[in-house]
């Protein structure tokens, strides 16, 4: 009996710690919990708007994806998206196909494509900051390069 009690206590403790870890997540950002679908942006404000809108539309047209974010910088264009859960098995293929498709359509852009939650999260965070107008062009550009570098490290 004592053993069972100990077990229950420890399990609920584990649960609680896991929950408290989640708590601030919910308060700060829901980016991974629900569809955010942020507006596509360019680090140079007011420029390239059509281009990024276009890219976003192209990406969103894929049936396996939802929740697409596009950020265009001077050098790289970051495309992040979520894959519908049942299609996550084919995530790598989807990424490859998407890359090919985008490169064909927009040969001038240098694409970085990722479905990683971390990249998505950071993109949304960057997107928010850029929208609020607090970020200068160079700072936004720097952060974008950091995120792009992160995707490269993964491979």
């Amino acid at each position: 009996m004592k053993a069972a009690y100990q077990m229950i206590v420890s399990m609920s403790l584990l649960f609680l710690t896991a929950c408290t870890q989640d708590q601030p997540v919910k308060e700060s950002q829901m980016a991974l919990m629900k569809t955010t679908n942020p507006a596509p942006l360019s680090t140079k404000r007011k420029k390239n708007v059509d281009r990024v809108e276009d890219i976003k539309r192209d990406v969103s047209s894929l049936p396996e994806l939802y929740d697409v974010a596009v950020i265009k910088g001077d050098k790289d264009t970051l495309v992040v998206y979520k894959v519908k859960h049942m299609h996550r098995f084919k995530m790598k293929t989807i990424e490859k196909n998407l890359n090919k498709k985008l490169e064909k359509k927009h040969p001038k852009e240098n694409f970085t494509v990722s479905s990683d939650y971390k990249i998505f999260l950071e993109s949304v965070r960057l997107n928010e900051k850029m929208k609020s107008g607090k970020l200068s062009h160079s700072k936004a550009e720097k952060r974008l390069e950091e995120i792009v570098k992160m995707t490269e490290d993964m491979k």
Partner: protein
Amino acid sequence: MASKQKKMTPQQKNYQTLQQKHELKRPVLKNCIKAFLVGGLICLIGQAVSYFYIYYFNFTEQNVGNPTVATMVFFSMLLTGFGVYDHIGQFAGAGSAVPVTGFGNSVISAAIEHRTEGFVLGVGGNMFKLAGSVILFGVFSAFVVALIKTLLVMWGVL
């Protein structure tokens, strides 16, 4: 088992069938359900831990496995040290043995158990007495698999 059964005398065989009648059956279905729930729960906690690392540290989905595994092993150390993990194990069976926490438990329990024989001969010598086979077969099979795959790629089969 099969090879041994052949050598058995008729008397031994008779007895074993008689004995089997009295043997308490393992509650396989119940055990499986418990293993599923506890194993699933541990993985769920693991998932929560990995999102924690994604949110607050610079880990991507690809490499968040490392800190997650380390954290789970840390939890396992606490539960083992406080004498709880063996009770969870008795309840959950494979549910707590298959996740990496079970691997941690097998290392940590052996380490704690043999500290009475000293840190060098006891802890050092016995730490991997249970987990060693997992590492051996993991490494060796990975070596064989990776070797085959590399050779196939080199010869242009793949």
